């Protein structure tokens, strides 16, 4: 039976999550140098266009059609059979198409997250091909394993409420792979400072706002779980933002706005898999843990290994997603969500093991498949722009336009 309130909630959540991609565009766009901002905005927007179409043509079918344990198959190709009648396997109270479009927005933002790793140096044509292949051969299968009917990780009991594995771990690991193989940016004695920090703050605000749709909407109904997800999402973001600022204060002497927004995003990414299974108090623990671990990843690990993850897509999303998935195995409680499972702290150490397997499998698969796709595209298109193009900036060399005028 279709429920109007549930339908409206899922549609609205889909709109919220759609807004996260422009939000991410500004979050990333403000961080790059002035000569490259449009290339980042362009990549995010093109991802929105391209993957919306990929999803209705075959992405949704590969991910969610009840095929084998490993892929969904093509039985829902072109939304064939996906209509306004509910599909009880996923959600019995809303039209099947509403579920499809909600999931579409996840499929759009995940590849967009990777942009942070190779920003300021990837050729646009190569980006397009890479993104399409990555969505098809990494995101769609992974999504099927964890969320699709019959998916083998789902059957194993892996808990991922709103995409800690599917979205953040996969995008983060892909970011790490691409940033290593594409190499550092030129002339990088010191990291360039963000060219427009207010844009970063604007982007964070839109992301935080949209994340309510991302996490609470994943309940797919207006119920207590949605409310709980809403509350823990906000709590974790707040705890993480605050603790990041404190860490900076202690370590560098001054808290920064760049730090507080980075922390908030880390908190949001980390609480994503847990949001339907943990209590608000657990969310505070998750938020603080997110800041500490991601701060170490960004401020200590990255300089030590010397990879140039330009905008910390791995350091924030990858590390946050992995941490969140594991913490779900620790802090999940059946009191919050009877359909879930208890975690380590609630007397079920097995769940942590399952979560660990889920993350390890996802990270391993993503690592290998991303590397293969990268190399393939590199052979045909060359991923990296020429040195001169990089110095002149991608806006002018890839798109022949400029973000700002000087005099008029």
């Amino acid at each position, binding site marked *: 039976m279709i429920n109007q309130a549930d339908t409206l909630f899922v549609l609205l959540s889909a709109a919220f999550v759609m807004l996260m991609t422009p939000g991410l565009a500004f979050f990333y766009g403000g961080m790059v140098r002035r000569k490259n901002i449009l290339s980042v905005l362009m990549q995010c927007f093109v991802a929105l266009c391209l993957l919306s179409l990929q999803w209705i043509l075959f992405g949704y079918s590969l991910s969610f059609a009840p095929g084998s344990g490993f892929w969904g198959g093509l039985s829902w190709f072109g939304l064939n059979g996906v209509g306004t009648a509910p599909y009880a396997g996923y959600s019995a109270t809303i039209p099947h198409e509403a579920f499809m479009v909600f999931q579409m927005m996840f499929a759009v933002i995940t590849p967009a997250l990777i942009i942070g790793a190779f920003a300021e140096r990837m050729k646009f044509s190569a980006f397009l091909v890479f993104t399409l292949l990555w969505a098809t051969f990494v995101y769609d299968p992974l999504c099927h394993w964890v969320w699709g009917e019959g998916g083998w990780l789902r059957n194993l009991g892996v808990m991922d409420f709103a995409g800690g594995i599917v979205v953040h771990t996969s995008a983060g690991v892909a970011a790490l792979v691409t940033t290593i193989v594409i190499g550092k940016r030129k*002339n990088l004695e010191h990291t360039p400072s963000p060219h427009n920090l207010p844009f970063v703050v604007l982007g964070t605000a839109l992301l935080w706002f949209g994340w309510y749709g991302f996490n609470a909407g994943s309940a797919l109904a207006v119920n207590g779980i949605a409310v709980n997800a809403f509350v823990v999402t906000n709590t974790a973001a707040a705890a993480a933002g605050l603790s990041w600022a404190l860490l900076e204060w202690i370590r560098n002497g001054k808290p920064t706005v760049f730090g507080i927004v980075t922390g908030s995003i880390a908190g949001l990414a980390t609480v994503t898999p847990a949001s339907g299974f943990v209590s608000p108090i657990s969310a505070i623990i998750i938020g603080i843990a997110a800041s500490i671990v991601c701060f170490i990843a960004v401020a200590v690990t990255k300089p030590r290994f010397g990879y140039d993850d330009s905008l910390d897509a791995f350091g924030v999303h990858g590390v946050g997603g992995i941490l969140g998935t594991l913490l779900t195995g620790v802090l999940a409680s059946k009191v919050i969500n009877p359909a879930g499972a208890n975690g380590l702290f609630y007397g079920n150490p097995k769940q942590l093991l399952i979560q660990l397997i889920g993350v390890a499998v996802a990270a391993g698969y993503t690592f290998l498949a991303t590397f293969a796709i990268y190399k393939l595209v590199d052979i045909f298109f060359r991923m990296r722009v020429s040195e*001169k193009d990089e*110095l*002149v*900036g991608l806006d*002018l060399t890839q798109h*022949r*336009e400029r973000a700002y005028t*000087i*005099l008029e």
Partner: protein
Amino acid sequence: MKLVIAIIQPYKLEEVKEELYKVDVNLITVSEVLGHGRQKGVTEVYRGSKETGNLLRKVRLEIAVNDNFLEPTIKAIVKGAKTGETGDGKIFVLDLKECIRIRTEEQGSQAIG
């Protein structure tokens, strides 16, 4: 004393800076300007209407030097900025009558460095 003003391609700034540091010229003032050059520059296309603006974005350097530093400074700028294509820019040299370091009120060539 001389005041050197150079107009160069924006993306060459890093290299020019590096060359200047090599010859121990450390005090430069940089600003962003629009310059009219002979070259066409990259044509930007906005919604299909081609924009061939004749004012192009350039970087302007101001460097005050003592006379014995003049030639090394010019050489360094040329080395860093030259590609051989139109649009590389120009260097202007002006006489500098006086130079005062505000902090100490020193005057003349010792105030320059």
